[in-house]
Protein backbone atom coordinates (compact mmCIF):
# COMPACT_ATOMS: atom_id res chain seq x y z
CA UNK A 1 0.00 0.00 0.00
CA UNK A 2 1.32 3.37 -0.91
CA UNK A 3 2.14 5.74 1.88
CA UNK A 4 -0.60 8.18 2.68
CA UNK A 5 -0.17 11.68 1.56
CA UNK A 6 -2.03 14.82 2.38
CA UNK A 7 -3.86 14.71 -0.94
CA UNK A 8 -5.11 11.19 -0.53
CA UNK A 9 -8.83 10.74 -0.36
CA UNK A 10 -9.78 7.65 1.53
CA UNK A 11 -13.32 6.44 1.54
CA UNK A 12 -14.69 3.08 2.50
CA UNK A 13 -18.12 2.69 1.02
CA UNK A 14 -18.51 -1.04 0.60
CA UNK A 15 -17.11 -2.79 3.61
CA UNK A 16 -16.30 -1.23 6.90
CA UNK A 17 -18.98 1.35 7.20
CA UNK A 18 -16.79 4.41 7.31
CA UNK A 19 -18.97 7.21 6.05
CA UNK A 20 -21.15 4.70 4.24
CA UNK A 21 -24.34 6.72 4.27
CA UNK A 22 -22.78 9.92 3.22
CA UNK A 23 -21.10 10.49 -0.05
CA UNK A 24 -17.67 11.71 -0.73
CA UNK A 25 -17.41 14.52 -3.13
CA UNK A 26 -13.82 15.03 -3.97
CA UNK A 27 -12.94 17.37 -6.70
CA UNK A 28 -9.56 16.96 -8.16
CA UNK A 29 -9.77 19.96 -10.40
CA UNK A 30 -8.30 20.41 -13.80
CA UNK A 31 -4.65 21.14 -13.48
CA UNK A 32 -4.04 18.56 -10.81
CA UNK A 33 -5.80 15.38 -11.93
CA UNK A 34 -6.24 12.44 -9.63
CA UNK A 35 -4.98 8.93 -9.24
CA UNK A 36 -7.61 6.69 -7.68
CA UNK A 37 -7.25 3.12 -6.62
CA UNK A 38 -10.10 1.06 -5.24
CA UNK A 39 -8.99 -1.98 -3.29
CA UNK A 40 -11.41 -4.14 -1.37
CA UNK A 41 -14.03 -1.44 -1.65
CA UNK A 42 -11.77 1.35 -0.48
CA UNK A 43 -11.31 4.18 -2.93
CA UNK A 44 -8.05 6.04 -2.77
CA UNK A 45 -7.39 9.07 -4.85
CA UNK A 46 -4.09 10.82 -5.35
CA UNK A 47 -3.21 14.13 -6.81
CA UNK A 48 -1.41 13.50 -10.09
CA UNK A 49 1.47 15.62 -8.92
CA UNK A 50 2.20 12.82 -6.44
CA UNK A 51 2.09 9.91 -8.86
CA UNK A 52 5.87 9.88 -9.02
CA UNK A 53 5.91 9.08 -5.31
CA UNK A 54 3.73 6.03 -5.84
CA UNK A 55 4.99 2.51 -6.03
CA UNK A 56 4.34 1.37 -9.64
CA UNK A 57 3.35 -2.02 -8.23
CA UNK A 58 0.20 -0.38 -6.89
CA UNK A 59 -0.77 0.65 -10.40
CA UNK A 60 -0.74 -2.92 -11.66
CA UNK A 61 -3.87 -5.00 -12.06
CA UNK A 62 -5.24 -7.77 -14.15
CA UNK A 63 -6.95 -5.40 -16.48
CA UNK A 64 -5.88 -1.92 -17.37
CA UNK A 65 -7.25 0.49 -19.89
CA UNK A 66 -7.09 4.18 -20.59
CA UNK A 67 -9.93 6.67 -20.83
CA UNK A 68 -9.51 9.68 -23.04
CA UNK A 69 -12.20 12.23 -23.72
CA UNK A 70 -13.32 15.35 -25.53
CA UNK A 71 -10.73 15.49 -28.31
CA UNK A 72 -12.85 18.12 -30.14
CA UNK A 73 -10.87 17.56 -33.32
CA UNK A 74 -11.43 20.61 -35.52
CA UNK A 75 -11.51 23.12 -32.65
CA UNK A 76 -9.01 25.86 -33.46
CA UNK A 77 -9.80 28.79 -31.15
CA UNK A 78 -7.30 30.44 -28.79
CA UNK A 79 -8.04 28.04 -25.92
CA UNK A 80 -6.12 25.45 -27.97
CA UNK A 81 -5.22 26.11 -31.60
CA UNK A 82 -3.72 22.64 -32.05
CA UNK A 83 -5.98 19.93 -30.66
CA UNK A 84 -4.32 17.32 -32.86
CA UNK A 85 -0.99 17.91 -31.12
CA UNK A 86 -2.50 17.60 -27.64
CA UNK A 87 -4.31 14.39 -28.62
CA UNK A 88 -1.02 13.07 -29.95
CA UNK A 89 0.60 14.06 -26.64
CA UNK A 90 -2.06 12.01 -24.85
CA UNK A 91 -1.25 9.04 -27.06
CA UNK A 92 2.48 9.47 -26.38
CA UNK A 93 1.70 9.42 -22.68
CA UNK A 94 -0.37 6.26 -23.09
CA UNK A 95 2.49 4.64 -24.95
CA UNK A 96 4.88 5.53 -22.14
CA UNK A 97 2.81 3.84 -19.41
CA UNK A 98 4.75 1.17 -17.56
CA UNK A 99 1.76 -1.16 -17.83
CA UNK A 100 0.44 -1.04 -21.42
CA UNK A 101 -3.35 -0.65 -21.40
CA UNK A 102 -5.35 -3.33 -23.14
CA UNK A 103 -7.68 -0.89 -24.85
CA UNK A 104 -8.86 2.70 -24.90
CA UNK A 105 -12.22 4.19 -24.02
CA UNK A 106 -13.14 7.46 -25.69
CA UNK A 107 -15.99 9.15 -23.83
CA UNK A 108 -17.16 11.36 -26.66
CA UNK A 109 -16.79 14.69 -28.40
CA UNK A 110 -14.34 12.95 -30.66
CA UNK A 111 -14.93 15.73 -33.21
CA UNK A 112 -15.87 19.36 -32.80
CA UNK A 113 -18.32 19.69 -35.71
CA UNK A 114 -19.02 16.06 -36.76
CA UNK A 115 -16.96 16.53 -39.94
CA UNK A 116 -15.61 13.40 -41.66
CA UNK A 117 -12.06 14.78 -41.68
CA UNK A 118 -12.25 15.41 -37.93
CA UNK A 119 -13.21 11.80 -37.24
CA UNK A 120 -10.48 10.71 -39.68
CA UNK A 121 -7.82 12.68 -37.79
CA UNK A 122 -8.75 11.18 -34.43
CA UNK A 123 -8.77 7.64 -35.80
CA UNK A 124 -5.43 8.27 -37.48
CA UNK A 125 -3.80 9.64 -34.32
CA UNK A 126 -5.19 6.83 -32.16
CA UNK A 127 -3.67 4.27 -34.56
CA UNK A 128 -0.30 5.17 -33.07
CA UNK A 129 -1.46 4.13 -29.59
CA UNK A 130 -0.06 0.92 -28.15
CA UNK A 131 -3.60 -0.23 -27.44
CA UNK A 132 -5.34 -0.98 -30.73
CA UNK A 133 -8.94 -1.36 -29.61
CA UNK A 134 -10.87 1.84 -28.98
CA UNK A 135 -14.39 1.79 -27.56
CA UNK A 136 -16.32 4.95 -28.25
CA UNK A 137 -19.49 6.63 -27.07
CA UNK A 138 -20.73 9.78 -28.82
CA UNK A 139 -20.67 13.29 -27.45
CA UNK A 140 -23.15 15.92 -28.62
CA UNK A 141 -20.48 17.28 -30.98
CA UNK A 142 -20.33 13.92 -32.79
CA UNK A 143 -23.99 13.77 -33.79
CA UNK A 144 -24.54 17.25 -35.25
CA UNK A 145 -26.69 17.76 -38.36
CA UNK A 146 -27.29 14.06 -39.12
CA UNK A 147 -28.71 12.61 -35.88
CA UNK A 148 -25.53 10.62 -35.48
CA UNK A 149 -25.73 8.71 -38.78
CA UNK A 150 -22.06 9.22 -39.54
CA UNK A 151 -21.00 8.41 -35.98
CA UNK A 152 -22.99 5.17 -36.03
CA UNK A 153 -21.53 4.15 -39.39
CA UNK A 154 -17.98 4.69 -38.17
CA UNK A 155 -18.06 3.68 -34.54
CA UNK A 156 -21.34 1.90 -33.97
CA UNK A 157 -20.53 -1.52 -35.42
CA UNK A 158 -21.91 -4.21 -33.16
CA UNK A 159 -23.81 -1.64 -31.11
CA UNK A 160 -27.56 -1.45 -30.68
CA UNK A 161 -29.31 0.73 -33.30
CA UNK A 162 -29.20 3.66 -30.85
CA UNK A 163 -25.44 3.28 -30.42
CA UNK A 164 -25.30 1.75 -26.93
CA UNK A 165 -23.59 -1.58 -26.26
CA UNK A 166 -21.95 -3.77 -23.68
CA UNK A 167 -18.94 -6.07 -23.61
CA UNK A 168 -16.96 -8.18 -21.17
CA UNK A 169 -13.26 -7.96 -20.45
CA UNK A 170 -11.74 -10.32 -17.90
CA UNK A 171 -14.90 -10.59 -15.90
CA UNK A 172 -15.65 -6.87 -15.93
CA UNK A 173 -18.90 -5.87 -17.63
CA UNK A 174 -18.64 -2.64 -19.62
CA UNK A 175 -21.66 -0.59 -20.64
CA UNK A 176 -21.23 2.12 -23.30
CA UNK A 177 -24.26 4.40 -23.05
CA UNK A 178 -25.52 7.24 -25.24
CA UNK A 179 -26.99 10.29 -23.51
CA UNK A 180 -26.57 13.02 -26.13
CA UNK A 181 -29.49 12.31 -28.47
CA UNK A 182 -32.95 13.90 -28.55
CA UNK A 183 -32.11 16.50 -25.94
CA UNK A 184 -35.14 18.50 -24.84
CA UNK A 185 -35.32 22.28 -24.46
CA UNK A 186 -34.25 23.27 -20.98
CA UNK A 187 -33.19 19.73 -20.15
CA UNK A 188 -30.09 17.70 -19.40
CA UNK A 189 -28.58 14.64 -21.06
CA UNK A 190 -31.06 11.85 -21.79
CA UNK A 191 -30.78 8.07 -22.01
CA UNK A 192 -34.38 7.43 -23.08
CA UNK A 193 -36.74 4.55 -22.40
CA UNK A 194 -35.49 2.30 -25.17
CA UNK A 195 -31.94 2.38 -23.83
CA UNK A 196 -33.07 1.98 -20.22
CA UNK A 197 -35.09 -1.10 -21.13
CA UNK A 198 -32.07 -2.55 -22.92
CA UNK A 199 -29.87 -1.79 -19.92
CA UNK A 200 -32.22 -3.54 -17.52
CA UNK A 201 -32.20 -6.68 -19.70
CA UNK A 202 -28.47 -6.52 -20.35
CA UNK A 203 -27.44 -6.67 -16.69
CA UNK A 204 -30.25 -8.89 -15.43
CA UNK A 205 -28.36 -12.16 -15.93
CA UNK A 206 -25.12 -10.92 -14.36
CA UNK A 207 -23.99 -11.97 -10.90
CA UNK A 208 -24.03 -9.19 -8.37
CA UNK A 209 -20.31 -9.74 -7.84
CA UNK A 210 -19.57 -8.68 -11.45
CA UNK A 211 -17.73 -5.38 -11.52
CA UNK A 212 -19.57 -2.89 -13.73
CA UNK A 213 -18.01 -0.03 -15.63
CA UNK A 214 -20.40 2.39 -17.29
CA UNK A 215 -19.07 4.97 -19.72
CA UNK A 216 -21.04 7.76 -21.33
CA UNK A 217 -20.32 11.30 -22.45
CA UNK A 218 -22.43 13.55 -20.22
CA UNK A 219 -22.03 12.86 -16.49
CA UNK A 220 -24.57 10.37 -15.14
CA UNK A 221 -24.69 12.33 -11.90
CA UNK A 222 -25.80 15.88 -11.51
CA UNK A 223 -22.64 17.93 -11.52
CA UNK A 224 -24.19 21.31 -12.32
CA UNK A 225 -27.67 21.37 -13.86
CA UNK A 226 -27.46 25.11 -14.57
CA UNK A 227 -24.92 24.25 -17.26
CA UNK A 228 -26.66 21.05 -18.32
CA UNK A 229 -24.03 18.91 -16.60
CA UNK A 230 -26.13 15.92 -15.71
CA UNK A 231 -28.47 13.29 -17.17
CA UNK A 232 -32.24 13.48 -16.64
CA UNK A 233 -32.94 9.78 -16.30
CA UNK A 234 -29.62 8.54 -14.89
CA UNK A 235 -31.28 7.60 -11.58
CA UNK A 236 -33.28 4.93 -13.41
CA UNK A 237 -30.12 3.55 -15.01
CA UNK A 238 -28.33 3.45 -11.66
CA UNK A 239 -31.34 1.74 -10.08
CA UNK A 240 -30.76 -1.20 -12.46
CA UNK A 241 -27.17 -1.37 -11.20
CA UNK A 242 -28.03 -1.31 -7.50
CA UNK A 243 -27.47 -5.02 -6.95
CA UNK A 244 -23.84 -4.83 -8.01
CA UNK A 245 -21.14 -4.41 -5.42
CA UNK A 246 -18.82 -2.38 -7.62
CA UNK A 247 -20.03 0.14 -10.16
CA UNK A 248 -17.75 2.73 -11.72
CA UNK A 249 -19.08 5.46 -13.98
CA UNK A 250 -16.70 7.21 -16.36
CA UNK A 251 -17.81 10.38 -18.11
CA UNK A 252 -16.38 13.29 -20.07
CA UNK A 253 -18.14 16.44 -21.27
CA UNK A 254 -17.11 18.83 -18.49
CA UNK A 255 -13.40 18.94 -19.39
CA UNK A 256 -12.18 18.61 -15.85
CA UNK A 257 -11.61 15.91 -13.28
CA UNK A 258 -14.28 15.29 -10.70
CA UNK A 259 -14.97 12.30 -8.53
CA UNK A 260 -17.78 11.27 -6.29
CA UNK A 261 -18.78 8.14 -4.41
CA UNK A 262 -22.43 7.42 -3.77
CA UNK A 263 -23.35 4.06 -2.29
CA UNK A 264 -21.91 1.35 -4.51
CA UNK A 265 -21.14 3.76 -7.33
CA UNK A 266 -17.95 5.69 -7.96
CA UNK A 267 -18.25 8.50 -10.48
CA UNK A 268 -15.38 10.00 -12.39
CA UNK A 269 -15.13 12.59 -15.08
CA UNK A 270 -12.04 12.88 -17.24
CA UNK A 271 -10.17 15.87 -18.55
CA UNK A 272 -10.40 16.83 -22.20
CA UNK A 273 -7.46 16.27 -24.51
CA UNK A 274 -8.40 19.58 -26.18
CA UNK A 275 -9.24 22.43 -23.79
CA UNK A 276 -10.27 22.92 -20.15
CA UNK A 277 -13.63 24.26 -19.00
CA UNK A 278 -14.31 26.33 -15.89
CA UNK A 279 -15.39 24.94 -12.57
CA UNK A 280 -19.19 24.86 -12.17
CA UNK A 281 -20.56 28.34 -11.67
CA UNK A 282 -17.17 30.02 -11.63
CA UNK A 283 -17.62 31.63 -15.04
CA UNK A 284 -20.61 33.16 -16.83
CA UNK A 285 -20.75 30.12 -19.12
CA UNK A 286 -19.09 26.73 -19.58
CA UNK A 287 -17.13 27.94 -22.63
CA UNK A 288 -13.49 27.01 -23.23
CA UNK A 289 -11.14 28.27 -20.56
CA UNK A 290 -8.16 30.12 -21.91
CA UNK A 291 -5.02 29.33 -19.99
CA UNK A 292 -1.48 30.41 -20.84
CA UNK A 293 0.03 28.13 -23.49
CA UNK A 294 2.67 26.80 -21.14
CA UNK A 295 -0.05 25.73 -18.71
CA UNK A 296 -2.39 24.19 -21.26
CA UNK A 297 -0.92 20.72 -21.20
CA UNK A 298 -1.16 20.55 -17.45
CA UNK A 299 -4.96 20.77 -17.67
CA UNK A 300 -5.42 18.23 -20.44
CA UNK A 301 -5.34 14.59 -19.73
CA UNK A 302 -5.94 10.93 -19.98
CA UNK A 303 -7.46 8.60 -17.42
CA UNK A 304 -5.78 5.30 -16.78
CA UNK A 305 -7.85 2.60 -15.12
CA UNK A 306 -6.57 -0.59 -13.54
CA UNK A 307 -8.75 -3.43 -12.42
CA UNK A 308 -7.50 -6.02 -9.98
CA UNK A 309 -9.60 -9.15 -10.31
CA UNK A 310 -10.73 -10.81 -7.13
CA UNK A 311 -10.59 -7.63 -5.12
CA UNK A 312 -12.95 -5.71 -7.37
CA UNK A 313 -10.44 -3.00 -7.35
CA UNK A 314 -10.26 -0.21 -9.86
CA UNK A 315 -7.54 2.31 -10.08
CA UNK A 316 -8.39 5.48 -11.89
CA UNK A 317 -5.68 7.83 -12.91
CA UNK A 318 -6.39 11.15 -14.50
CA UNK A 319 -3.05 12.08 -15.82
CA UNK A 320 -2.23 15.47 -17.24
CA UNK A 321 -0.20 15.93 -20.40
CA UNK A 322 2.49 18.03 -18.79
Amino acid at each position, binding site marked *: MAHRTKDEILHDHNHDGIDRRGFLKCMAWAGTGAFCVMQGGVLKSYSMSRLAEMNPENMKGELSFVQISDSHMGFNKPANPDVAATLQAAVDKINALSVPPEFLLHTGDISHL*SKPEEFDSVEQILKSASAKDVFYVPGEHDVLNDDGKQYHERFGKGAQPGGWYSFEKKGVHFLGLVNVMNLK*AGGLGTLGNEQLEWLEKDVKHLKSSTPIIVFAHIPLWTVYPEWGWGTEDSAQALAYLKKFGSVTVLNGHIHQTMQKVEGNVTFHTACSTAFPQPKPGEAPSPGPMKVPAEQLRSVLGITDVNYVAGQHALAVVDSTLA
Partner: protein
Amino acid sequence: MRRSVFIASMIATAVLSFGGVVLEQKGFVTSAQEKPASTAEVKIDNFSFGPVAITVPVGTTVTWINRDDIPHTVVSTEKVFKSKVLDTDEKFSYTFTKAGEYPYFCSIHPKMTGKIVVQ
Protein backbone atom coordinates in the same frame (compact mmCIF):
# COMPACT_ATOMS: atom_id res chain seq x y z
CA MET B 1 -15.21 83.51 -64.75
CA ARG B 2 -16.20 83.25 -61.16
CA ARG B 3 -19.84 83.44 -62.15
CA SER B 4 -19.57 80.54 -64.67
CA VAL B 5 -18.00 78.33 -61.99
CA PHE B 6 -20.92 79.17 -59.72
CA ILE B 7 -23.45 78.22 -62.42
CA ALA B 8 -21.60 75.00 -63.15
CA SER B 9 -21.70 74.03 -59.50
CA MET B 10 -25.40 74.90 -59.36
CA ILE B 11 -26.03 72.56 -62.30
CA ALA B 12 -23.98 69.83 -60.66
CA THR B 13 -25.92 70.20 -57.44
CA ALA B 14 -29.20 70.05 -59.34
CA VAL B 15 -28.15 66.88 -61.17
CA LEU B 16 -27.08 65.26 -57.94
CA SER B 17 -30.33 66.25 -56.27
CA PHE B 18 -32.29 64.96 -59.19
CA GLY B 19 -30.42 61.66 -59.02
CA GLY B 20 -31.19 61.51 -55.33
CA VAL B 21 -34.88 62.07 -55.97
CA VAL B 22 -34.94 59.29 -58.53
CA LEU B 23 -33.31 56.91 -56.06
CA GLU B 24 -35.77 57.88 -53.38
CA GLN B 25 -38.66 57.38 -55.78
CA LYS B 26 -37.41 53.92 -56.62
CA GLY B 27 -37.33 53.13 -52.94
CA PHE B 28 -40.80 54.57 -52.51
CA VAL B 29 -42.24 52.51 -55.36
CA THR B 30 -40.82 49.32 -53.88
CA SER B 31 -42.10 49.99 -50.41
CA ALA B 32 -45.53 50.83 -51.75
CA GLN B 33 -45.80 47.38 -53.32
CA GLU B 34 -44.57 45.32 -50.34
CA LYS B 35 -44.02 46.39 -46.77
CA PRO B 36 -40.41 47.23 -45.90
CA ALA B 37 -38.69 44.09 -44.69
CA SER B 38 -38.43 44.04 -40.92
CA THR B 39 -35.35 42.43 -39.45
CA ALA B 40 -34.15 41.54 -35.99
CA GLU B 41 -31.00 40.00 -34.64
CA VAL B 42 -30.35 37.61 -31.77
CA LYS B 43 -26.79 37.20 -30.61
CA ILE B 44 -25.54 33.93 -29.20
CA ASP B 45 -22.91 34.69 -26.60
CA ASN B 46 -21.72 33.03 -23.41
CA PHE B 47 -24.05 30.08 -23.94
CA SER B 48 -27.16 32.30 -24.05
CA PHE B 49 -29.48 33.92 -26.57
CA GLY B 50 -29.65 37.70 -26.37
CA PRO B 51 -32.17 39.11 -26.13
CA VAL B 52 -33.63 35.95 -24.71
CA ALA B 53 -37.13 36.96 -25.89
CA ILE B 54 -38.08 39.44 -28.58
CA THR B 55 -41.38 40.62 -30.02
CA VAL B 56 -41.45 41.32 -33.78
CA PRO B 57 -44.12 42.08 -36.41
CA VAL B 58 -45.31 39.39 -38.83
CA GLY B 59 -42.94 39.14 -41.79
CA THR B 60 -39.81 39.78 -39.72
CA THR B 61 -36.66 37.96 -40.62
CA VAL B 62 -34.77 37.07 -37.45
CA THR B 63 -31.06 36.39 -37.79
CA TRP B 64 -29.12 34.54 -35.11
CA ILE B 65 -25.37 35.00 -35.05
CA ASN B 66 -23.05 32.83 -32.99
CA ARG B 67 -20.47 34.95 -31.17
CA ASP B 68 -19.25 32.06 -28.99
CA ASP B 69 -16.15 30.03 -29.67
CA ILE B 70 -18.27 26.89 -29.31
CA PRO B 71 -20.86 25.78 -31.90
CA HIS B 72 -24.56 26.15 -31.21
CA THR B 73 -27.85 25.47 -32.97
CA VAL B 74 -31.18 27.26 -33.13
CA VAL B 75 -34.03 24.75 -33.01
CA SER B 76 -37.72 25.50 -32.63
CA THR B 77 -39.21 23.54 -29.74
CA GLU B 78 -42.27 22.94 -31.92
CA LYS B 79 -40.17 21.99 -34.96
CA VAL B 80 -41.05 25.13 -36.94
CA PHE B 81 -37.43 25.91 -37.81
CA LYS B 82 -34.08 24.26 -37.29
CA SER B 83 -30.62 25.54 -38.10
CA LYS B 84 -27.59 23.53 -39.06
CA VAL B 85 -24.84 23.74 -36.50
CA LEU B 86 -23.48 27.30 -36.31
CA ASP B 87 -19.77 27.63 -35.71
CA THR B 88 -18.26 30.90 -34.52
CA ASP B 89 -19.65 33.92 -36.46
CA GLU B 90 -22.01 31.80 -38.54
CA LYS B 91 -25.60 32.96 -38.98
CA PHE B 92 -29.05 31.48 -39.36
CA SER B 93 -32.13 33.39 -40.51
CA TYR B 94 -35.81 32.57 -40.44
CA THR B 95 -38.73 34.70 -41.61
CA PHE B 96 -41.80 34.56 -39.39
CA THR B 97 -44.93 34.76 -41.54
CA LYS B 98 -47.49 33.87 -38.90
CA ALA B 99 -48.28 35.45 -35.55
CA GLY B 100 -47.59 33.35 -32.51
CA GLU B 101 -45.02 32.39 -29.92
CA TYR B 102 -41.97 30.46 -31.07
CA PRO B 103 -39.90 29.00 -28.26
CA TYR B 104 -36.54 27.61 -29.33
CA PHE B 105 -33.35 26.16 -27.88
CA CYS B 106 -29.85 25.01 -28.72
CA SER B 107 -30.07 21.27 -29.36
CA ILE B 108 -26.41 20.85 -28.33
CA HIS B 109 -26.78 22.80 -25.07
CA PRO B 110 -30.48 22.47 -24.26
CA LYS B 111 -30.21 24.71 -21.22
CA MET B 112 -29.97 27.54 -23.74
CA THR B 113 -33.51 28.63 -24.54
CA GLY B 114 -35.15 31.69 -26.14
CA LYS B 115 -38.43 32.88 -27.57
CA ILE B 116 -39.63 34.90 -30.55
CA VAL B 117 -43.09 36.47 -30.20
CA VAL B 118 -44.59 37.39 -33.58
CA GLN B 119 -47.49 39.86 -33.62
